[in-house]
């Protein structure tokens, strides 16, 4: 009756959508800053909390937060996790440590990856600094910060960072 006996039970329908994506003002400030080896946060106005990475608003007041403020590329680890599962866009050798780091001058933790630190030495309160790509490779992309690595400074006591953990 039919040329091939086995019935068709599934089909593959490839979908490919191309977008011309615009980053918005906040992301542009942040990423152009990285291209100049600077970490730029934003705030709604003078004296207000500095948000890193900037997403355009201070969510507590729903006001535009587009006033650029440079923060340090050093900070304190407020939480972390040792990742042993591959992820689409992170190409570090497994396992690696992902961290929430409160950069000096920022008021919200920043999520990135920690390297050059034995897994059993990672701890909350630890000090770390950004490891930038070589200057000629700096570009408006999060990858301009290759990773964070520990620095020789005393740990920050848990009580001083409790609200950020």
């Amino acid at each position, binding site marked *: 009756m039919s040329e091939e006996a086995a019935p068709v039970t599934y089909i593959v*329908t490839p979908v490919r959508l191309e977008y011309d994506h615009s980053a918005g003002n906040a992301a542009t400030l942040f990423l152009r800053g990285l291209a100049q080896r600077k970490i730029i946060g934003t705030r709604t106005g003078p004296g207000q909390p500095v948000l890193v990475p900037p997403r355009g608003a201070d969510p507590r007041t729903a006001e535009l937060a587009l006033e650029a403020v440079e923060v340090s590329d050093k900070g304190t680890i407020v939480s972390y996790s040792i990742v042993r599962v591959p992820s689409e866009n992170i190409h570090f050798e497994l396992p690696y440590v992902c961290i929430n780091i409160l950069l000096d001058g920022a008021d919200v933790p920043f*999520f990135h990856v920690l390297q050059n630190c034995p897994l059993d030495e990672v701890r909350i309160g630890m000090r770390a600094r950004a490891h930038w790509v070589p200057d000629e490779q700096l570009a408006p992309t999060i990858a301009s910060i290759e990773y964070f690595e520990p620095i020789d400074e005393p740990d920050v006591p848990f009580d001083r960072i409790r*609200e950020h953990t």
Partner: protein
Amino acid sequence: MAIRCGVVGIGQTKYDAKRIDVSMPGLVREAALRALEDADLTFADVDAVVIGKAPDMFEGVMLPENYLADAVGASGKPLLRVHTAGSVGGSTAIVAMSLIQAGIHDRVLTLSWEKQSESNAMWGLTLSPPFSVAVVAGAGGYFAPLIRSYIQRSGAPEDVGIRTALKDRQNALKNPYAHLRIEGIDFDQIANSPMLWDPIRYLESCPSSDGACAMVVAREELALKAPRPPAWVLATAMRSEPNQFPGRDAVNPQAGQLAARDLYKQAGIGNPRREIDCAEIYVPFSWFEAMWMENLGFAALNEGWKMVYEGATALDGDLPVNMSGGVLSSNAIGASGMVRFAEAAMQVRRQAGEHQLDDVKIAMGHAYGGGSQYFALCLFGVEKP
């Protein structure tokens, strides 16, 4: 007072890594039919349909409910599509209940689903656009640091997660719909399973499932005529908060606390630990049970883990949690929130079969989504509110 609303029909599909025996219409149909049969109704008896689902990228169909209209008997009727991230199954049920409570419809079919095997959940959850301002390490990568913070604050022993997962996985053996039913599951098997995002091990994490869950909710007069006793809706509550801002406590989020307080106030509950008989809560990674016990006010601050240790949340404990095996055992992301509500309602209707508890008067359904930001809660009772 809003019009009283009761759950008169519940239907679930078998949750599985891949349901290659059905099309997308067939999957949602399976749950819808079972809910209608449970209520002894047909599609013609339904006035409106409310569908919930997580991101459409999982199936690669934009607003798929338009295509599913005839599979769920929606032709000529109102059809709403809710999407509130992981809590969507819960918030979808609440929207359906509000159509009854507002006196707009007499019977509403609500259904939530995901067919993740059309693509792959990990791909869907780690999509990061150009110019993203943060590294993306998947759901576990986001939640594991929160668990690390909880352990730091509460001083909880390292095996709390393993004990929680063991409880849920043993419960799943009593649930024919569950995706992961691991015969002979024991402590060591979980403890030795590979660590994914420290401190979360493989068997402490939820699977990716295909599946759908449906409920029929009805107005009081019709609920009273249903063939099986209804689960009365005593109270519902929803709260959302932004993802990241100075001083945000993502470990014990304010939105969850406020939703719980609102729920208890509506239902006149003074001591939730004592007055609520059991709870189905959204635990995609084992540690979240301990965290949600505190967030929901069942345990004092930093003491949620003790409930796991003392066996309070076991089937024979004073507050059994996730009798169905929970999200750890089945996770069709869009459906999981509604499965929590449905399983709580099944306990009240004495429909939970092997994992049925004795004498359940009040049961809680709980769902959360996003970065612990979206909360949808419901209390079901044997008695009318």
